[in-house]
């Protein structure tokens, strides 16, 4: 009935007119202008363009503790000492030279460089004193707990500071001296005001920093929230023109422009298009083949100071039994995880300290299932359990040595082992850990253990494992461990076995506790290394955590405009790179 009706010509003509005379030319103008802008921007070599995966949390150094804020702020606020990118030794940075340690008086005397803040004012010992006072007055998280070993701090002159310690400290150089220094001029009034308030730390952290005052190679020029961060070269940078740690420092680029990309897919397209020169984030192995085919892109593979592991709850059965944990460690096929889950971009971990941290890493810890195939691993684990009193209705290995489907494993007490759960983060949070958990479940079932891998939202997982301790086993990781091995004490000392403490497994070993406490007081590095080695041996014998893998950090840069990236543990995104990267002429 309605088929004969047509659209009135007047209406359609009006819409056509609007479309062709207004809308289409407007869209055309926008596209052409935009394209012209795009062509113009890619020629500019005074800007080093860096992609970030997320916006920095804050440019207030006391709140901006996330990785993106750190990436920006580490170009501004500088510590007295820094790690050498290759040797990983602690070297003077804002300090002029190595500290003078008086063992009898327990003092470190440090001479400061004649450096300036980015507003041209002098960096002096007053600023060091102020920074220390700030840590103490506000009990600033992450810093106060390390700095409280300082009994007194003196400033004999404008460029000398003397640290008086309460006791000898192994972590003084690595954890105290690497804290960022802030300017009294910038933070003094803020701190004074905050201290008069009920919640001083919140006031300090919520202070909006417009132009952070630093001593680093770059200063913040402009921050357009939700869009970009523009940093320019600091004209007062103390390192410019100097050779430090074998590097002739610049910076050689006038501007850093940070752009945010919501997904890695889009960031990769931006790299390929030349919109950015470097994407400051770990790229997943799935992108490698595509990037390797692009001649304009260089890939950088570096070791990570990371630990991904299987953790056990030692507070309750079944994993309160060391032999069971060792048997589980024996059946886990780390090579499979490396090949299939990490696609060979990583290393299997033997010790709790990653191998990239070569000074502290002990390569001679006990290794489980090394060089064995599946049958050998299951047989070895079966033997371990059998000798500890475990039994099966149907054992995993037949008398003729062939594998079979086991059933009903019985504990040494004769009771049937209850099913247990391996908690993992969900696959959308970290597919590697989720998949590793599933694989471990399968290997354990081949041994007859009633294992069930269960992905759980990250918040709930942490609350269950760290807060409530209501779990059997879990797969978790630390993506960026400090290079000082002091964290061994935090992870495994029995005094950290408490709700929200880092000893999530509930590991208790008196000998370990003694070593962990003693090593903190040992200033002799070689002697401390032997103690740390011993601690690693203990951990791999008792297996509260079983280290699984350490993925490589994979990063990509465009090679047409800039060169000279500094490769180090944790990647090329570091202050050294930004101080030495040069435009290609």
């Amino acid at each position, binding site marked *: 009935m309605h088929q004969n009706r047509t659209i009135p010509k007047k209406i359609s003509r009006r819409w056509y007119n609007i479309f062709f005379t207004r809308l289409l030319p407007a869209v055309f103008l926008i596209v052409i202008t935009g394209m012209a802008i795009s062509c113009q921007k890619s020629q500019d070599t005074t800007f080093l363009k860096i992609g970030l995966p997320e916006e920095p949390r804050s440019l207030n150094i006391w709140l901006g503790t996330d990785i993106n804020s750190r990436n920006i702020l580490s170009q501004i606020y500088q510590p007295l000492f820094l790690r050498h990118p290759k040797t990983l030794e602690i070297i003077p940075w804002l300090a002029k030279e190595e500290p003078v340690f008086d063992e009898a008086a327990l003092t470190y005397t440090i001479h400061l460089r004649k450096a300036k803040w980015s507003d041209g004012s002098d960096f002096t010992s007053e600023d060091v004193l102020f920074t220390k006072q700030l840590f103490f007055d506000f009990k600033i998280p992450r810093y106060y707990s390390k700095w409280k070993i300082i009994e007194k701090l003196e400033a004999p002159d404008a460029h000398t500071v003397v640290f008086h310690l309460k006791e000898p400290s192994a972590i003084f150089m690595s954890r105290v001296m690497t804290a960022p220094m802030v300017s009294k001029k910038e933070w003094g009034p803020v701190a004074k005001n905050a201290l008069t308030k009920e919640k001083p730390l919140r006031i300090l952290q919520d202070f909006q920093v417009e132009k952070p005052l630093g001593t680093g190679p770059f200063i913040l020029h402009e921050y357009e929230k939700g869009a970009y961060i523009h940093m320019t070269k600091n004209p007062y940078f103390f390192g410019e023109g100097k050779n430090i740690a074998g590097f002739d420092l610049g910076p050689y680029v006038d501007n850093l422009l940070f752009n945010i990309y919501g997904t890695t897919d889009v960031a990769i397209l931006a790299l390929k298009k030349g919109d950015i020169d470097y994407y400051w984030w770990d790229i997943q192995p799935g992108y490698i083949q595509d990037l390797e085919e692009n001649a304009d892109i260089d890939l950088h593979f570096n070791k990570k100071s990371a630990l991904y592991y299987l953790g056990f709850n030692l507070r309750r059965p079944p994993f309160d039994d060391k032999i069971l944990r060792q048997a589980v460690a024996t059946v886990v096929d780390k090579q499979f995880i490396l090949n299939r889950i990490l696609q060979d971009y990583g290393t299997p971990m033997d010790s709790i300290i990653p191998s990239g941290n070569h000074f502290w890493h002990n390569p001679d810890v006990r290794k489980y299932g090394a060089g064995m195939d599946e049958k050998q691993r299951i047989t070895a684990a079966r033997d371990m359990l059998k000798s500890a009193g475990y039994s099966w209705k149907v054992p995993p290995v037949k008398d003729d040595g062939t594998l079979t489907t086991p059933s009903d494993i019985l504990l040494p007490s004769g009771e049937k082992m209850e099913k247990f759960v391996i908690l993992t983060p969900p696959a959308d949070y970290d597919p590697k850990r989720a998949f590793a958990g599933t694989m471990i479940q399968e290997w354990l079932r081949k041994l007859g253990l009633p294992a069930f891998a269960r992905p759980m939202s990250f*918040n709930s997982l942490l609350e269950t494992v760290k807060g409530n301790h209501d779990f059997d086993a879990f797969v978790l990781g630390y993506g960026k*461990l400090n290079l000082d091995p002091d964290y061994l004490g935090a992870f495994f000392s029995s005094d950290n076995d408490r709700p929200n403490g880092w000893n999530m497994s509930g590991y208790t070993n008196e000998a370990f506790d003694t070593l962990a406490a003693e090593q903190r007081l040992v200033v002799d590095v070689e002697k401390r290394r032997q103690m740390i080695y011993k601690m690693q041996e203990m951990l791999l014998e008792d297996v509260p955590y079983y280290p699984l893998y350490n993925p490589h950090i994979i990063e990509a840069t465009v090679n047409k405009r800039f060169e000279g990236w500094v490769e180090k543990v944790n990647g090329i995104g570091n202050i050294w790179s930004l101080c030495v990267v040069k435009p290609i002429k």
Partner: protein
Amino acid sequence: MKKSSYILVKLVEVAFIFFVILTVLFFLFRLSPGDPISKMVDPMLTPEDMAHLIEQMGLDRPLWEQYIIYVKNFFTGNFGFSFHYGEQVSTIILDKLKWTILLFTTSTVLAAFVGVFLGKIAAWRKGSSLDNVMSISALVCYTLFIPWFALLLLWILGFKLGLFPLGGVLTPSLWVGNASLFIRILDVLHHLMLPLLTLFIINLGSYLLLMRSSMLSVLREDYIITARAKGLSEKVIRNKHAAQNAALPVITSVGLSLAFSINGGALTEQIFTWPGIGKELIFAVSNNDYPLAQACFLLIALVVLVANLIVDLLYAWLDPRITY
């Protein structure tokens, strides 16, 4: 009931529902797993540090005390500071809201206009090839998976053809220079086009189908036959008699869509790196940033409630059969 009494009753209803939402939101966030600190997997952070941070956030106080402070703060217009950004929640929301409105509200309005117009034509020419093409295309648009479609458009139009930028709201290297205001506006529009196109295509389908189906049912009504018998022109029958009546369910849908458009869309924002409120909302919830998450949800609740009220009133105005 008088019009003014009806509005008053409705306003009281809205206020009550809003207060319930205010309360439910508070307890929902506090009872969800974790707290703003627990997600920080940083061995440098000692349990003492964590306790200190919790105390500074006021989360160590009893729940009822926190609730009273929360309600008091709300009624004094103080939404507090975001735990995550350390910035005033109102500033963060206003900052993001402008971009959300620019993209999501614009795309909803555009899609609604075009969808209603095309839906009217499709219904009027029911069974024709034009109707078939429009209906099938609308169904395809309606069922498109946003991330896939957005990435596809980005890859073809942004990367391969280079017609549009690969996300963001502006070209940083242009803005750090001395570009004129006109160029800057063009730049923002250039960045807006691809996400707008994506959302427009996705939203268009639903409005077109809704209008088509509503119009088809109206065209079967007796008063359309009466109008035709009266000798009214086809244009008058279609636009005045059919389309106006058919628009009623569409108005409800558009009204609510407009309200929900301030919610943004996390996936679209993520892919196009659009600094809208949707991504922020998801982030605030997953990171237990209570002040920010609460304020975002309250804003959405308020806008939806008000939009609902307006649609109710509009309905009564548009349809004489509905009385207060």
